[in-house]
Every structure is written in C-alpha cells, then in structure tokens.
C-alpha cells in the first residue's frame, strides 16, 4: 500500500507502455493462460516485488532451500507498481511463474481472472490453516477455495515521540477521545508542530487513517456510510480543526507522514512495522516508542498482508507447493522474518518477534481486520472513495453525514449491490 513519490513516478512512466502491451494481449480472442515452464522443467520460477534490501533475506531463504533439497529456484524481482500488470500480461502471453508472491487483497481478482491456481487440495492435505491468524488466512480464500497461502503479515500501530508527549504533559492515548485531546495539547504547547501525522493523500493509500478510525468505531469498509464512518470523519475533522492533525496530511503519503515524525514535526504517527527500521536509521537520537492504536468502540488494526500463490498452468505445481510449505515452517520463519523486518502470518512462531517494538505490532495481529470476499475484490476502489469522503469533510465542502452517505452509495455501486 505504500507508494513513495519516486515509485509513483515509475508508475507514471510505466502506465503508457502498459497500456500498449495490455492491448496486445488479445481480450477479444481466446486467451492462453499457460505457464512458461508448463512442460515442468523442474526449475521453480519465483516472482516477488521485494526491491533492495527486502529481497536479500527472501533470496537467501530460497538459496537455502536449493541447498537443502537440490531443487533449483529462479527468483525474479518485479517492482510493486508493475507486479500485477506484469502478471496480467504474462498470463495472456503464457509466461506465468510457478510461484508469485502477491498483495493479499489481489488474490480474489487474480483467482477470478484465472491467473493463479486453486490450492485447496494441497492446503487440505497440509492441514495447517488453524495455525494462521484468521483475517490473514481469509485473504487467500476465494468462494470457499484456497488460492493464496499467507506469506507474512504487518499491521498498523501508533508511533510516539516520548519527549514531545512529556513536554506537552500528555500520556500516550489509548482511546481516540484521548488522541484528539493529546494531539491538540501537543500542537498548543508547541512541543511539536502537530500532534498526529498520517497519510491522507488522494487514492487508496490515503484511506488507511480514516479506515483505522472507522474500524475502531465499530464499522468497516463495505459499510463505511454507517454511524461509525460518520463518527470517524467527525473525529478527524475535529483534529484538523484543533491543529492536532495538519491539514496537509491530505497531501502526505505514508513516507511523508513518517518524515514528519522522524524530523520531530509531528509527535505521533500511524504506520506499519515496516517503518521501524526507517525511524531507527533516520532518527537515531529520537526518544520514541510504539503503542497499540487507540481504541474506540473496539480495538482494531488494519492487516497488510502478502500471499504465496501458484501460477495458473504451472507444470511444476507439486514442487512449487513443496517450496511454499517449506517457507512457512516456523523454523524457517524464525530465521527469515527478523531479517525481513516483518511479522509472521501464523501464531505459532514466537521466535520470529524478539524485538520489543515489533512485539507491539505482533500483539495486535489478533485484532487485525482485512477486506475479504467481495470487499477485497473492490477494496482499492472502495478505499479511494473513502479517501474522497475524508477530503470533502476536512476541506469543509461536505458534512460528515453527507460525505459518508455519498461514499456509501459509491461503494455499493462499485460492489454491484
């Protein structure tokens, strides 16, 4: 979900060429949808979107697999922005990999388009689904069949600057009411320019904050227009009005919000565990810590997840499944995840989270919400709609009720209800 400005630049450049190559696929004729190693050459092609440095531990794990089993694995890195498009193009051109590491919320879409295989038979025989956090496992389910196996997980928590909160004389907020008061107090005291920083930029990325607030109020994405959504919009409106949250968060992506936190401009920030390393590297002298997200009607966080899937028509499906099983062994995860800076998707890997800061994120995984089923299929559009409601309310062009109702109508239409 994170999309840095430079990556957005790459998207802009790629969009044009993608339009051309997609056009060449042949939507009107019969597609092929076969695999580049359909014959089953015994070499497992593995596509992922981990650029440096994240790809290093993954490729090390794959190399270890080859060492242990003698099965050759060919990893290939494709940038996140191009990943889905490349899969789509290759599906039409007959060049799918044996294994693709995909954004969990795209599982349904890719399964529906016939790009990835039904893994139910393998998964049933394996029988380890109870070891997984439910929300994460559900992201791999499409119409009762298993299409994706959770690879790892991440979720959102509250980063806070200990000095700034102390200077403003406030405690770490545990409820959203406390958050509103604390954010305003920080801004008033001058301990930092703003109390809270989060992304609110145009598009799905900027909807994370408002979605988290809505989840805490007891709502969710598909029913955003209900009372919880209205309460969430009003809560954020109060924070921008008090100066606790900068009006500029509507122009910030997640990296911008984190930059505001690391340079001391914002006393608190909402982000995922993957930002821990960034803060440690960029602000070694900052006194900071992490707390669970504030609660309201419920405690909730948003799950950011990835799934392992097998490309449609793979000739090495059995061997590919063996690799997926191997990668998900607790002993392998304990070694791999700390290096990868992420959390386990299953609850039986205590050794994977030894860092106390990351443990805060891991402890929240049981409360993690993720879009599933029909909501997952349309989550990008629904999140885009929710961000627009947020923008309308913060800029004062609509009341929370109006914006929520309009968003609900748009979400219903997107989901074809």
């Amino acid at each position: 979900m994170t999309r840095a400005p430079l990556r957005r630049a790459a998207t802009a450049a790629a969009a044009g060429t993608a339009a051309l190559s997609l056009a060449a696929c042949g939507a009107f004729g019969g597609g092929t949808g076969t695999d580049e190693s359909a014959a089953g050459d015994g070499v497992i092609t593995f596509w992922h979107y981990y650029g440096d440095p994240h790809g290093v531990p993954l490729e090390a794990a794959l190399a270890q697999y080859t060492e242990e089993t003698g099965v050759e694995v060919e990893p290939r890195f494709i940038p996140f922005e191009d990943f889905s498009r490349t899969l789509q193009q290759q599906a039409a051109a007959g060049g799918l990999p044996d294994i693709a590491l995909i954004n969990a919320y795209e599982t349904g879409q890719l399964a529906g388009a016939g790009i990835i295989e039904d893994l139910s038979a393998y998964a049933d025989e394996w029988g380890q689904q109870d070891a997984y956090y439910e929300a994460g496992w559900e992201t791999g389910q499409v119409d009762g069949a298993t299409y994706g196996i959770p690879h790892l997980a991440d979720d959102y928590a509250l980063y806070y600057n200990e000095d700034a909160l102390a200077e403003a004389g406030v405690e770490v907020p545990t409820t959203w009411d406390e958050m509103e008061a604390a954010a305003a107090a920080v801004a008033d005291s001058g301990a930092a320019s703003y109390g809270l920083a989060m992304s609110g930029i145009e598009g799905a990325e900027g909807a994370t904050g408002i979605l988290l607030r809505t989840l805490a109020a007891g709502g969710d994405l598909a029913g955003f227009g209900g009372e919880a959504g209205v309460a969430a919009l009003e809560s954020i409106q109060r924070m921008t009005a008090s100066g606790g949250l900068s009006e500029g968060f509507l122009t910030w992506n997640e990296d911008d919000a984190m930059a505001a936190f690391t340079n001391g401009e914002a006393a608190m920030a909402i982000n995922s565990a993957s930002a821990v390393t960034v803060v440690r590297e960029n602000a070694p002298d900052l006194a900071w810590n992490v707390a669970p997200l504030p609660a309201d009607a419920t405690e909730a966080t948003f799950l950011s997840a990835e799934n392992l899937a097998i490309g449609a028509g793979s000739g090495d499906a059995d061997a590919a499944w063996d690799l997926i099983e191997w990668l998900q062994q607790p002993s392998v995860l304990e070694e791999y995840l700390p290096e990868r800076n992420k959390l386990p998707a299953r609850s039986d890997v205590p050794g994977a989270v030894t860092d106390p800061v990351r443990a805060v994120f891991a402890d929240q995984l049981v409360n993690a919400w993720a879009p599933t089923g029909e909501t997952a299929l349309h989550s990008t559009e629904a999140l885009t709609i929710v961000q627009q409601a947020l923008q309308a309310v913060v800029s004062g062009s609509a009341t929370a009720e109006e914006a929520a109702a309009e968003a609900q109508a748009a979400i219903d239409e997107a989901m074809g209800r």
Partner: protein
Amino acid sequence: MAVAVPPRADAPPRPVPTGRGRGRARRLLAPLLFTAPAVLFVGATVVYPLLYSVLQSFFDIGLREVVQGGAQWVGLDNYADQFARPRFWDSFGVSVVYTVASVALTFAIGLGLALLLRRPFRGRDVLRALILVAWVLPTVVSANVWRWLLDGSYGLLNAMLRALGLIDGDLFWLGRPGAAVAAVVFATAWSFAPFAMILLAAGLEGIPKRLYEAARIDGASPWRQFRHITLPQLRPVSLAALLLVFIYTFKNFDTIFLMTAGGPGGATATLPVYAYNEAFEFSRFDTASVATTVLMIVPIALSLFYFRALRKERDA
C-alpha cells in the same frame, strides 16, 4: 508518403533497364520498399494500439477478459454508462479548465519571453538556453520539485511568504482544490512555455522589419506596433503554437499524477488521470477506453478545424 525526387541535371544517367516490364515494376516497388519500414513501424506502434483501444470501448472488458479472452460486444453501453456519470463529466470539466488555463498561461509566458529575447543583449543566448532547461527537464524531476516547493510545512514558497509576513503558519497549496488547480496549471505552463517561446520567436523573425520602420515613421507607439503589426503577423504561428500546446496539455498525465494524483477530492483529476484509475486501479479497461477515446477525439476535432482554417486562409 512516397515523394518522387526529380532527377537532377548533373545526376549520372540511370542504368538502362534490360526489360520494359521489369523496370516499371521496380520503379513501382522501390518507393513501397523504402516506405515499408516506416509504415510497418507506425502501424504496429501507433495505428494498431489506437484502433485496439477504440475497439475495447465497445466490449465488456475486465481483468478476466484481458487474460482469458472472450470479451462480449456491448455496443455503445460503455459510452452510455460513462456519459451518464457525473464523475466522468467532472473529469472532462477539470480537463477543459486545466487545458484552457495552461494553454493561455503558456502562450502568454512564451510570447513574453520571445519578445524579451528578440532584441540582442549581453547574455541573451545563455538566458535562452537556461529557459529551455524547463522544457528539457524530465517531468519526474520538475513535478517533484514543484511538490517540494509548494509543501505547506517546509516548502520554499511558504518560507518566503512567511518571511514577508504574508502568511502565518502552514498553508497547504496542493491540499486545497482551487490552489491545487492553479499549481498544476502553473507547473504545466512553466514547462511548456519555452516550447511556445521557440515557435513564437521563429514567427517574430519572419515579420518584415520594414513594417516596423513604416510604423515608426508614421509615429506609431510601441503598443500600437505590437497590437497592429506583431499580433496580426504572428497569427499563423500563434495558431499552430496554441494547437500544439493544447494537444500536449490535454493529454498530459505525469505532471498532475506526480503532483497531486488527481487530488484533492478529484479537483485535478483530468481525463487522463480518470482513465488511468479506471484501467489500472479498478481494472475496468472498457470504460477506461471510453475516456481515452474522448481524449483522442477532442484534439483530432481541433486539428481538423485548424487545418480547415489554414486552407481557407491560404485560398483567400
């Protein structure tokens, strides 16, 4: 495209063909062979995707159809669907406002620069080269620089305004609908103005000096000279410049996508941004094709109008 080159007087005599029929065939075949690579290239990279994209707008195409084929013909349903959507027309409206404002500003700045650089002065060539940098600079660079300049907290613009005491606290230019539109218009005009400048400067060179001499003798003020000589004489070049800048701006995607991603609240979501979201964010390739087809029709219509006007002027 085949242009017959008349034989030059000093050209060596052509080899005499051994047979009449073979010679004619070769004469007919040669131009075709020479143009074939260009025709094939343009056909494969421009005509085919273009027609394909237009064709897509008459089918029901989601991700599944792109991968597996079997798209259903739906006639004009996609057009009916899009034309009934306020969001589509919002984007169209944003596109028109953005394009007209950008073209006007680009033309004004371009003309101003062309006039300024018309008279020789020390450092003129250096200045001209520097101005051209704005045009040559990749949009990825310029759009992000604009984003930083206009940032509410640490942007240069606000730092200056604060120093002058004009604003107090943070002002997020790209977070407000009106200001965001103005910002993308300005950024676009900034990068296209040097291009307009080059065209207009060439046009200025072509105005006969004697017209100005005659006007000066008659005692015309500089303003009257500009109004009654420069502008009318510059008309053909101006029209061409306006048309070209219009086409560039109307289809411009990267500046806006990088600066605002179409925000805030869709205030800068032009048709290209709309089409991008439809196709690559929401996987609705059919309705995206409706938007791109409209994107194509408008400049084509304007171009036809321009060429007709040009022919009329020439015939008159």
